[in-house]
């Protein structure tokens, strides 16, 4: 198990490096464009990167912190503030909070960039859902209860799908409607990015379900999820950063 934790940590280190490079590219783009939407994209990816960092930290804590109740689930939770925080980090709950914020910002970003305006009811539902998802991740927690974890992953997957399916549809429609080659590539990349974003929590969810039915964790789906993150970042790069248009 420790070996798998180590492999996971190495894998996630690589993902963090790629994501950080992309984050810097967005920041550079923001300083070039000084546009509100560029800043929103930066905030979205910043939250995603923080979520990945917390996931990585969970491996670090389990492998190197020497805190016994983190790697030995038979030991009782000491019930301190520190254990409250550390256990939520190791079970990805803090990551979920940042993911929820990132997905919520993606909703605002989608509405602003595709210009359809807010649907009042939908906006309230999305806001409530984000709060419930983050609240569930933080407070509905029982150490070693994988079912709660599965629900936490399910909430994130549904949230991601609800926001990124319309994003995919809008990007794909724009891809089909435009004749410009640069825009076509960019919109197609964004459509692909949206699909991979949905596949990431789906893969983690399947990995969790496999744990629930007795698997050791770190299944193929865990690694697939991170590979999908790389593809999503590539899609975002070719969708947002690399296109250069003549106005």
């Amino acid at each position, binding site marked *: 198990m420790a070996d798998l934790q180590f492999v996971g940590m190495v894998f996630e280190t690589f993902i963090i490096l790629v994501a950080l490079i992309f984050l810097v590219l967005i920041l550079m*783009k923001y300083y070039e*464009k000084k*546009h*509100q*939407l*560029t800043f929103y*994209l930066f905030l979205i990816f910043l939250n995603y990167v923080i979520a990945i960092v917390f996931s990585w930290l969970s491996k670090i804590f389990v492998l190197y912190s020497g805190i016994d109740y983190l790697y030995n689930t038979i030991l009782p939770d000491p019930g301190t503030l520190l254990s409250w925080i550390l256990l939520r980090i190791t079970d990805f709950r803090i990551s979920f909070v940042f993911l929820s914020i990132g997905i919520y910002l993606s909703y605002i970003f989608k509405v*602003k*960039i*595709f*210009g*359809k*305006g807010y649907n009042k009811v939908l906006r309230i539902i999305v806001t409530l859902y984000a709060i419930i998802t983050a609240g569930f991740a933080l407070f509905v927690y029982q150490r070693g209860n994988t079912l709660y974890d599965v629900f936490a992953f399910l909430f994130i997957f549904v949230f991601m799908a609800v926001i990124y399916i319309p994003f995919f549809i*809008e990007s794909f429609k*724009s891809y089909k*409607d*435009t*004749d*410009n080659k*640069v*825009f076509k590539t*960019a919109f197609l990349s964004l459509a692909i990015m949206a699909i991979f974003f949905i596949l990431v929590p789906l893969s983690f969810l399947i990995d969790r379900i496999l744990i629930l039915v007795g698997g050791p964790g770190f299944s193929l789906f865990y690694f697939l999820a991170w590979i999908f993150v790389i593809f999503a970042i590539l899609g975002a790069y070719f969708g*947002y*950063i690399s*296109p*250069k*248009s003549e*106005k």
Partner: protein
Amino acid sequence: MSKVLQDIWILTENGIVLYHRKFDENLDDQLFGGLMSALNSFAEELIDKGLSNFELQDKRYTLLKKNRMLFIANSAKKVKEKKVIQEMLLIANKFFNLYSEDFLLNWNHNVSVFKNFEKEIKDSLEETIKKFQDAFW
């Protein structure tokens, strides 16, 4: 809606610009309106249906006359004319749905009443592309 059109003008027969969706900021609304109206009047002297389109640099300007109103839009040259006219007809229909014939007959020459029309044609691909260009590309 309005996937291929860039600037859109809606003019009365005598050249008053009721509405203009700006894509190119360098054009003066009323000046352009006067020019279009004059061009169209001149063309009507030559042919029955009036001028339907003309090209300037890399853009095609298409004119559509409906219910004594003149709809003008520009688009990239390579966009098919049929597609442009389809989009313009959609815009014209939206305009007449929003502003009835009675309303237009009794209109008090205050063009600000047509500002709401922006919402009707806001969700265009061109708008989206422009946002992407401003923020990223």
